[in-house]
């Protein structure tokens, strides 16, 4: 089974990286870009488990390790299997 976890900075948390990317896109002439936020995209391949169990476990993993709940939100998506 394959799952994808999207980790993004919480609303209102400064994203220096996004700022830097936006500015450089402007320099490259892409003026139409208003905002950029950079997050993490984690792909996990795992065995056995039914979807429900897996979902639960993946949420745990994200909360414990993949995301930093203090500044980040996450979303779990089981993409295959």
């Amino acid at each position, binding site marked *: 089974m394959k799952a994808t976890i999207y980790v993004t900075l919480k609303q*209102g*948390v*400064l*994203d*220096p990286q996004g*700022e830097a990317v936006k500015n450089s896109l402007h320099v490259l002439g892409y003026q139409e870009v208003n905002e950029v936020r950079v997050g993490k995209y984690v792909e996990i391949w795992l065995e056995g488990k039914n979807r429900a169990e897996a979902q639960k476990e993946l949420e745990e993993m994200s909360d414990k390790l993949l995301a930093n709940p203090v500044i980040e939100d996450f979303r779990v998506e089981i993409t295959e299997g």
Partner: protein
Amino acid sequence: MKELTYREMGLNDQEFENIKTIMGREPNYLELGMFSVMWSEHCGYKNSRPLLRTFPTEGPQVVQGPGENAGVVDIGDNQALVFKIESHNHPSAIEPYQGAATGVGGIVRDIFTMGARPIASLNSLRFGPLEDARVRQLFSGVVAGIAGYGNCLGIPTVGGEVYFNPSYQGNPLVNAMCVGLVDIDQIALAVASDIGSPIMIVGAKTGRDGIHGATFASEELSEASAAKRPAVQVGDPFMEKLLIEACLELIKEDLVAGMQDLGAAGLTSSIAESASKKGRGVMVDVSKVPRRETGMTPYEVMLSESQERMLIVPRAGKEARIEEIFTKWGLDATVIGYVTEDGMFRLMEGNEQVGVVPVAALTESCPVYYREGEEPAYYQECRSFNPFDLEPADLAPALINLLQSPNIASKEWVYRQYDHQVMTNSSVLPGDGDAAVLRIKGRSKGAAFTTDCNGRLVYLDPYQGGMQAVCEAARNLACVGARPLALTNCLNFGNPEKPNVYWQMQNAIKGMAEAARALNTPVVSGNVSLYNESADRAIFPTPVVGMVGLMPDIARRRGMAFKDEGDLIVLLGELSQELGGSEHLYLAYGLEKGAVPPVDLAKEKSLIELLLDLAEKETLASCHDISEGGLAVALAESAIKGKTGFKVNLEQPLSRWDGLLFSEAPGRAVVSVKPSKLDELIAKAKEQGVPCLTLGRVEGSKLIYQGNGQELIGVALDQAVSTWGDAIRCSMK
């Protein structure tokens, strides 16, 4: 954001009454918020100010004492060192990486705000035991945060200290120190004087970060604090780097009348502090402050602790040039108000007045509490404990345990993550000496830096422990060959409203002040962090001392590593048996007790003078002070660093040896010399009245400790190296 009551803002009923009296009316929400942050311990020092006054703050070397963003000491040639240490304990407990990173950012701003080029960072860290997974997470997060921010700025992190003890389990300590170099005629101060001159804000846009951070830093950590927690500040070291370069350019061209960083309590504090110096007022339009988020209220704007922002008061007619420089660095500066005559802090939102407070009310009127200390019960009980009532532990295992104790073991796992060589000045690197040494480009002189505090000793005996912290710092500087000049300090204590905690503060500060006087190292800056308590207990009182020193010729710097086979090993200072408060007692018996070996300031002073004298004559091959783990560990560390063995022999009538080997009594150092220089050493020691005892010689590949000619401990060098070298790295795997 739901409205807080004055109590939730951290003000007590009496303080609220005072505010109403000062104002002659009920303050509005914005005004109340401003009072609450300015009157917090973090900004107002309401519990500590009476004690801080007892510090010696003057001396011929002092250019600027406490009261500015950082202290300044003269190092000759129209040059000065600008330095300060500051805590970021609570933010780091919540989010270790960002908490530590923004801690570095904050102290670095304090330094370049003075017009100085930051040249070195140090940090003093305290955590619970490494066996705890959460602690390991905190530890690695904090170290990564310091590295992430400091490395990006290109300021070398050259030193510091790390201790692990259960008392810090729920409340880690993260203190960051920064040192800057400035030409004395270029020092900038935080003042807004000329009436009508504009006030500019530059750097990051303002968001809702860390609102009430200052208040938050003035309360005990609890489950609740997690909920109450303001949006965590995220650091942007790249923005800070641009600010450093741009601001130093402004100073170089003499374009600013006043410059102030935005730290705790954000705009409120930095504007109030700048205005108060000359009794000025300000008119500020909050709607002009560039925002990162929409719908922010004046309250949120004025209390935001968004990082990487500076306040600039231009010299008349220099605005244009200032704009130019900021544009060059891709920064935009915005005028948000101007200086007024009437001493009032006026806040507008567009053309509506949203608040007005007397500047002095926020600064000078901050209440001061003269509290009563009370000697805690544990004090006498611990003092009266006699370690010699214990069965002596097996010596060899005891030494191994000491070498692998994270409080003594190599801190390489930490400093490998710090860029400690950028700026190409570092000439005694982390781990190689008792203090960091930097060359001053274009001069023959060098500067040395260290931070020190043994919280356990301060807990057992605040007065002795406080003296110790200052003495160890000075001794460490002398060991590398630098004369101690002045100190900064970060007073990490528990809740001052508890008489036992206040007693710890009183006595620790008394000890620090006496030692600072005796050693002629005045206090020129510092920071106070109180309420360091978690559910179950207060931290060990931990007044961290950061000290700077000067050596006339950097060629005479000294490391701790033994050099050549055949060199003689000499103890400077007395043989001691006292085990009170030692790491050995803790490791071998689980005890944190005993009378702390007393400091003799006169002896400390003569040891320091001797070490400086020997540096000038380049008599010594190596020099290492005796601290945690005692004589045995000091010898082992010099051997490990020198990749060589040694053989020493101790003589005494007593039958037990644990005292002699593991006592952490102050005022001592282990040195090595070429045999040809022994007489010179002995003569010098006599002159200074420092006891001087030849213990043995550098030789072979084994660490051999003898007592009255019998082998007490024999450890293979390789084993010592791996035991001491791998301890922390392995527990962090």
